[in-house]
């Protein structure tokens, strides 16, 4: 039912691994990356449906990742997760390439439903 591919990108290992575990329990096919460069590598290797993307990471941050994503293959739906609300200016620049902005800490139930929605599973 859930052959949805989710990539979780966060440099905080504890947060990343628990998030991955929760999404796997929810039935998604989950991979992980710990910095922006790795995200771009993963995206180049295999298609991803939903990208749970932390803003602040070493190297390329979440914003740079979104800006550098190739249009082909079709980029994943991006759920941008951050500690702060992002500047409106940044949001305007990223536009529709980001599906949703989520504030940390995101409640697990909420994250699951957001991923489901992003994957087009929710009605």
């Amino acid at each position, binding site marked *: 039912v859930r052959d949805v591919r989710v990539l979780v990108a966060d440099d905080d290992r504890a947060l990343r691994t628990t998030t991955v575990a929760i999404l796997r329990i929810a039935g998604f096919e989950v991979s992980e990356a710990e910095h922006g460069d790795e995200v771009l590598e993963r995206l180049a290797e295999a298609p991803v449906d939903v990208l749970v993307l932390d803003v602040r990471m070493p190297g390329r941050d979440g914003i740079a990742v979104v800006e550098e994503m190739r249009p082909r293959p079709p980029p994943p739906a991006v759920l941008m997760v951050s500690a*702060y609300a992002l500047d409106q200016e940044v949001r305007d620049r990223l536009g529709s390439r980001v599906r949703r902005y989520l504030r940390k800490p995101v409640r697990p139930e909420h994250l699951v439903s957001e991923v489901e929605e992003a994957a087009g599973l929710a009605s």
Partner: protein
Amino acid sequence: LPPQQLLAAIVGSSDDAIVSKSLHRIITSWNQGAERLYGYSADEAVGKPITLIIPESRRSEEHHIFESVLRNEPIDHYETDRVRKDGSVVRVSLSIAPIRGDTGEVVGAAAIARDISERKRGERMFRGLLEAAPDAMVIVDGDARITLVNRQAEQLFGYERDELIGEPVELLLPRRLRDRHLGHRSAYFGNPQVRPMGFGRELFGLRRDGIEFPVEISLSPLRTDGGMLVSASIRDITERREAEAMFRGLLEAAPDAMVIVDGVGRITLVNRQAEQLFGYPREQMVDRPVEMLIPERVHSRHLGHRAGYVLDPLVRPMGVNLELYGLRSDGTEVPVEISLSPLETARGVLVSAAIRDITDRKRAEAELEEAHRAVVRGERLSAVGEMATVIGHELRNPLGAATNALYLARYELGQVDGAVDRHLTTAERALAKAAGLSEDLTVYMRERDPQVQTLDFAEVMREVRDMVRTPAGVTLEVAPAPAAVDADPALLVQVLVNLVTNACQAMPDGGRVTVASRAAGDATVIEVCDEGTGLDAAIATHVFEPFYTTKVQGTGLGLAIVQRVVEAHGGRVTLVPAPGGGAVATVRLPRTAPAP
């Protein structure tokens, strides 16, 4: 009494020596006055030649006088010498008149002699005193003719004595004042007493060389045998006038208001700056108690201080460490700084007070202090900002991880109950609270300009009521008749939620929170009152500082957010103990939108 006897009685009782003599210059009568003056009894003298009492040196003179009298030329007040029985010489003033027989022919002469040696001594003493007087003395008779002057008067006016004696006193006055002086002097003769001349008018003398000079004159009447004389003591006050002018110039040039007060606290002199500072023209200050310039509440204290100062007058600032205030004519008070110094004068010690309006300085000090506070607050805020960044970023990840881990733990455990469920629940709540703290911080640090619009306060409070979970026993009341308020709706709701939450937390045993709003001029005032334990002054000064909290469950940011938001609206917020217990938070927001 027949005329003859009457005359005899008068002659007998006269103090003067009255002696009559025949054409042969034989003494024919000798009264008691003559007995006293010359020392001979009537028995001894009558029948003796008049030469009995005439010294050798005056014999020929007497002869001439007698000849004149016989020629019907009476002698008046002629001063000469006579010799007494004991051989001493006495100075007399002599008047001699012929005595006529029944048919009118001269039959002898009557001489009235008065001992003037005493008067002479008095005159000499008087003249000595006159010359020793520091001031110019001019003595005039009833016709205001000069009868006596001293050397000082000669020097002062530049005349020789002989040039003055017998002249009208107006000679010594400037021409323009002479007519007026005539009136004044006749008035003085009508009511002569010792007093200064002029009654506050400026007086001038005129020198022989035509130069005028300012004088001070004191008058006193002298009653003499020759009628009333008036003595004028005249002082050249040119130098004093110059000194006064210089003093007045200095006084007026002083940058401070100057008020000079005498020993009993009466204002004697003020400058223009004092008029401006206190708002009175000088004539309304001079001669009035200095307390008119001092707020009433400190009058009694000032009286004590003033008395103390007169006893120990030193140059010193007044009221060290005290806030001093002056009282203006319009009843307002002005903060002042006062420096006192004693002035030794002929009228005793005067106290000169230099008074400086320190309104501007006080304001500048307050502004500086406020600026300093703002800097300190700003520094603290930027420190808070950095800390918030750390907490926001570094703490949110572990918070998220912990939340996730709990979620996973529950998943792995499946259905749990009892102690495990309670512990997990406790951990979940603690994490939720930590998440709330980081959220508060984010709100606090998020600086955005308020989007101000005119709000219906009742509507705002409905939203607040929905958002605040009032604890059991606490009721939230909104006072009727809400006022319109101009604010950013979301931010105002945040402010009120925080204030109401704060009020609820102040009442662990329950009570009532009342929120009222009212229009106050060009502002809207919102008050949030509780019935809690109140707060003491030490706490009240800190409640708006970030991370300041007295509550176990507080984050210390609720009121800091309130202040940040209210100040961003250009408003003010205070939290003070309420009069009836509890506390009252007052938010004052300016009306920025025009009233509907």
